[in-house]
C-alpha cells in the first residue's frame, strides 16, 4: 500500500511550487465534502514505489481561527498521513517554525523541507541545517522548489522517516509553570477517559482547551460533557491566576512560549543573519545587550549586586524594629514571669529562638520582591540562558539552570521545588547530578543565617559579602557537579533548547501576590516547624539540670554567668556539642555552634533559633544582652574568620531533612539522599577547616 505524505506550510512558503515539482502533470484537484477549501492530491514515483501526496491549505498555525487551519488540522488528525512534509521558508525561519512546532506537538512524524535556501542566502541568512535537525529531532532537507533542487533528497528522507519505528521523541515544550502545572493535571484526565484520544495526543487536547479552541471544546463537550466541564474549570482557574498575576491569558502565554522557544532555538547557532537588525523585535533588541557575551555577564553581576544592596538597605530599619520588638517582648516576659522553667522556655526557647528567625522577615520580603520582579520581567530566564553555557562546561544540562535558580541561585529560594524542577531533565545522569548539587544554593533558610553573620561581622560591606557568598556557592556546586559527572555519574550530555519568553512589565499585583506568598511561607514555617524544633531544642539544652550542690556553689560564689554556662554545658545538647568540639574547633566552631548546626539538619533556620536559645540561656541579664547579632559580635568565641568559616559550612553541609526526603523520592532511592547528607557534610567540614586554618595562618 502506498504511503501518504501531507505537505503543510505557511502561505507563500513555496509549498504549491514544490507540490507541482514533485507531482508534475499527475496532480488533480479535488473538493472535500463539508469544506470549501481545496486540498490537492497527487502521486510521486520513486523507482518502483509510489507515494500519495496531499497538498494542504497554507496556514500560519494549527489553531481553528480560519477554515484553512481547520481543514489542515482535521486532515492531519483524521487521516493520519505517514509523514508531514513541512515546507519552511528559509528566509522567514522564525515565523515558519511556529507552525512546525504545532505539527510536531500533534505527534505526527515531520520532515522539514527547508525551502528557498537560495533566497535566504541572498539575504545574508545562513542556517545550520544539522543543528536545526538535531534540536528539533526531525530530518531537515534544503530545497529550492522552483528549480526542483533537493526534491529527491526530500522524498528519500520522508520515505526513510515513514519506515522508521524508533523516531526521536521531541521533548514537550514548557509553557511556564502555571500552564505546565495545568497540563500535568489535565493530561491524565484526558488520557484516562480517552477523550479525543483516537485522533489527538492528550497533551495537545489539553493545550487546545487552554487556548479555548472552540472546535476542540465542542467535540469534547459532545464526547464527554462531564470531563469537558472539569477541564474547563481547570482552564478557568489558570486563566484567573494568569490574569491576576501577569495580566495575560493562557492562549497568549502559550504563544509567547512558542515564540520564545523558537527564538532560543535559533540562537543555538542555527541562524546567522547579516544586516537584518531592522527586523528585530523589542525583546530581541534588549537581548542584544542583556545577553551579549561580554556585556551580559557584567550586567547580570550588577543586577544581582544591586538586588543585594537594595534588599539590605531597605530591610535594615524594619529589621531593627523587629529586633527591638522581640527584645521588648523578652523584657516584658522577664519582668512579669516568675523565675523558673516556664520563663526560661518562653524567653530563651520561644522569643529568642523564633524571634531570631522572624527578625529576618524584612530581608526575605525585599529579596523576594526583587526576585519576583526579575522573574516576571523575563530577566531570570536570560540569567538561565547565560549560565547554560557555563553549565555545559561542568557537565550539567541547560535545564539544570532553572532548578539551581529556584533553589536559591540568587538567594532566597528553596531546594525542594528546585529538586522537583529537575524532573524536566530527560537524562537520568544529568538529573541526578542536578539533584545532588542544587542543595548547595542559598535557599531562603540559609539566607537569614548568612544575613545574621554578615550583619554581625561584615556590616560595612554587606551586599558585596552576599555577592561573594553567591559566587562561592555556584562555584562549589559546579565543581562538585563536574567531579560527579567525571566519576560516579558519567554519561553523555543531551542537546538543549532554552526558551526565552518576551520581556514583560511586572504588575504590582503580581509582585505583591508572589512575594507575599513566599514571605508568608517563611513566617508560617517559623511559627510552626521552627517553633516546635526550638521548643524541643530548648528542652535538650535545659535538661538534665545541674545537681543542686553545684548550683549552690556557683550562687554562693556569685558566679551567675558561669552557672548559666555550666548548666548549658551539662544539658544533653551541651554534652553533644562539647563532644563534637575537638573536631569542629579546627573550623572555629564551639560547642554552642555545634548544637545549632545539628539542629540545622532539620531545617536551616533552626541554626538561628538554636544559636538564639543557646546564647540566651548563657546570658544572665536579658535586657543587656541585645539581639543575637550583638551577642555574637561581642562574644569572645567569635571573630570574622569564624563567621566566614561557618558561612562556608552552612552553604555546603547536608540538605535539610525535607530536601533529603525530596531527593530520595526524585532519585528513586534513599541511597542518594544519604549520599547527599554524608558527602555534603564531609565536604563542608573540610572546606570550613581549610578556610579557618588558612585564615588563622594569615593572622585573620
Amino acid at each position: 500500500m502506498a504511503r501518504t505524505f501531507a505537505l503543510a506550510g505557511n502561505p507563500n512558503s513555496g509549498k504549491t511550487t514544490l507540490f507541482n515539482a514533485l507531482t508534475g502533470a499527475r496532480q488533480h484537484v479535488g473538493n472535500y465534502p463539508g469544506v470549501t477549501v481545496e486540498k490537492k492530491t497527487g502521486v510521486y514515483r520513486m523507482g518502483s514505489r509510489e507515494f500519495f501526496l496531499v497538498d494542504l491549505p497554507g496556514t500560519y498555525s494549527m489553531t481553528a481561527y480560519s477554515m484553512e487551519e481547520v481543514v489542515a488540522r482535521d486532515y492531519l488528525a483524521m487521516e493520519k498521513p505517514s509523514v508531514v512534509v513541512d515546507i519552511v521558508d528559509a528566509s522567514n525561519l522564525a515565523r515558519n517554525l511556529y507552525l512546525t512546532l504545532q505539527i510536531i506537538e500533534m505527534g505526527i512524524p515531520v520532515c522539514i523541507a527547508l525551502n528557498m535556501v537560495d533566497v535566504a542566502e541572498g539575504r545574508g541568512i545562513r542556517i545550520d541545517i544539522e543543528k536545526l535537525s538535531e534540536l528539533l529531532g526531525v530530518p531537515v532537507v534544503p530545497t529550492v522548489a522552483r528549480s526542483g533542487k533537493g526534491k529527491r533528497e526530500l522524498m528519500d528522507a520522508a520515505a526513510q522517516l515513514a519506515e522508521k519505528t524508533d523516531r526521536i521523541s521531541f521533548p514537550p515544550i514548557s509553557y511556564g509553570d502555571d500552564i505546565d502545572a495545568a497540563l500535568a493535571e489535565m493530561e491524565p484526565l484526558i488520557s484516562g477517559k480517552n477523550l479525543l484520544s483516537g485522533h489527538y495526543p492528550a497533551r495537545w487536547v489539553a493545550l487546545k482547551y487552554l487556548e479555548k479552541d472552540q472546535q476542540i471544546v465542542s467535540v469534547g463537550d459532545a464526547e464527554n460533557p462531564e470531563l469537558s466541564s472539569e477541564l474547563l474549570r481547570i482552564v478557568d482557574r489558570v486563566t484567573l491566576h494568569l490574569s491576576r498575576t501577569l495580566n495575560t491569558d493562557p492562549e497568549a502565554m502559550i504563544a509567547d512560549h512558542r515564540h520564545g522557544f523558537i527564538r532560543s532555538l535559533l540562537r543555538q547557532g542555527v541562524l546567522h543573519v547579516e544586516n537584518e537588525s531592522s527586523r528585530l523585535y523589542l525583546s530581541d533588541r534588549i537581548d542584544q545587550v542583556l545577553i551579549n557575551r561580554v556585556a551580559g555577564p557584567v550586567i547580570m553581576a550588577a543586577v544581582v549586586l544591586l538586588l543585594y544592596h537594595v534588599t539590605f538597605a531597605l530591610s535594615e530599619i524594619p529589621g531593627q524594629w523587629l529586633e527591638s520588638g522581640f527584645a521588648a517582648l523578652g523584657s516584658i516576659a522577664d519582668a512579669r514571669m516568675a523565675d523558673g522553667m516556664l520563663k526560661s522556655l518562653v524567653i530563651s526557647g520561644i522569643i529568642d529562638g523564633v524571634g531570631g528567625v522572624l527578625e529576618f522577615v524584612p530581608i526575605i520580603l525585599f529579596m523576594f520582591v526583587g526576585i519576583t520582579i526579575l522573574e516576571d520581567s523575563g530577566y531570570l530566564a536570560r540569567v538561565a540562558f547565560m549560565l547554560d553555557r557555563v553549565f555545559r562546561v561542568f557537565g550539567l544540562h541547560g535545564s539544570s539552570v532553572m532548578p539551581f535558580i529556584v533553589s536559591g541561585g540568587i538567594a532566597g529560594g528553596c531546594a525542594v521545588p528546585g529538586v522537583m524542577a529537575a524532573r524536566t531533565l530527560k537524562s537520568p545522569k544529568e538529573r541526578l547530578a542536578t539533584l545532588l548539587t542544587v542543595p548547595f544554593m542559598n535557599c531562603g533558610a540559609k539566607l537569614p543565617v548568612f544575613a545574621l553573620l554578615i550583619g554581625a561581622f561584615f556590616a560595612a560591606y554587606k551586599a558585596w559579602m552576599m555577592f561573594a557568598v553567591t559566587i562561592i556557592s555556584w562555584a562549589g556546586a559546579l565543581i562538585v557537579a563536574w567531579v560527579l559527572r567525571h566519576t560516579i555519574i558519567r554519561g553523555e550530555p543531551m542537546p538543549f533548547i532554552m526558551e526565552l519568553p518576551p520581556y514583560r512589565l511586572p504588575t504590582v499585583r503580581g509582585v505583591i501576590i508572589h512575594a507575599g506568598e513566599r514571605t508568608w511561607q517563611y513566617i508560617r514555617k517559623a511559627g510552626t516547624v521552627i517553633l516546635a524544633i526550638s521548643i524541643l531544642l530548648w528542652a535538650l539544652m535545659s535538661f538534665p539540670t545541674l545537681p543542686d550542690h553545684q548550683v549552690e556553689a556557683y550562687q554562693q560564689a556569685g558566679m551567675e554567668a558561669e552557672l548559666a554556662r555550666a548548666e548549658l554545658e551539662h544539658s544533653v545538647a551541651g554534652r553533644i556539642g562539647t563532644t563534637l568540639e575537638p573536631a569542629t574547633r579546627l573550623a572555629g566552631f564551639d560547642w554552642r555552634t555545634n548544637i545549632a548546626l545539628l539542629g540545622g539538619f532539620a531545617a536551616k533556620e533552626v541554626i538561628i533559633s538554636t544559636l538564639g536559645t543557646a546564647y540566651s540561656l548563657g546570658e544572665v541579664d536579658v535586657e543587656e544582652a541585645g539581639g543575637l547579632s550583638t551577642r555574637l559580635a561581642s562574644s569572645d568565641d567569635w571573630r570574622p574568620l569564624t563567621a566566614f568559616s561557618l558561612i562556608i559550612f552552612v552553604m555546603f553541609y547536608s540538605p535539610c531533612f525535607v530536601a533529603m526526603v525530596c531527593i530520595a523520592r526524585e532519585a528513586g532511592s534513599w541511597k542518594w539522599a544519604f549520599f547527599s547528607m554524608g558527602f555534603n557534610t564531609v565536604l563542608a567540614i573540610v572546606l570550613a577547616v581549610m578556610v579557618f586554618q588558612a585564615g588563622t595562618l594569615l593572622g585573620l
Partner: protein
Amino acid sequence: MAETILTIAIVGAAAVYLLRDLYRRFRRGSCGGCSCDKCADEKDCESTVYRNKAP
C-alpha cells in the same frame, strides 16, 4: 508544680507536632515544601508557588 506540668505539656505538644509532620512526609508522601504540610498531592503543594521552575 503547675508550671512544670505546663512546660512539659508545651514540650510534649511540640514533639507531637513534629512527629505528625514526619508522619505526613513519610506516610502520605508530602514533600513538605518550604513550609507546606498540606497533602501528598503535588499540584496543591505550596512549593510550586515558584513559577518558571524549569524551562
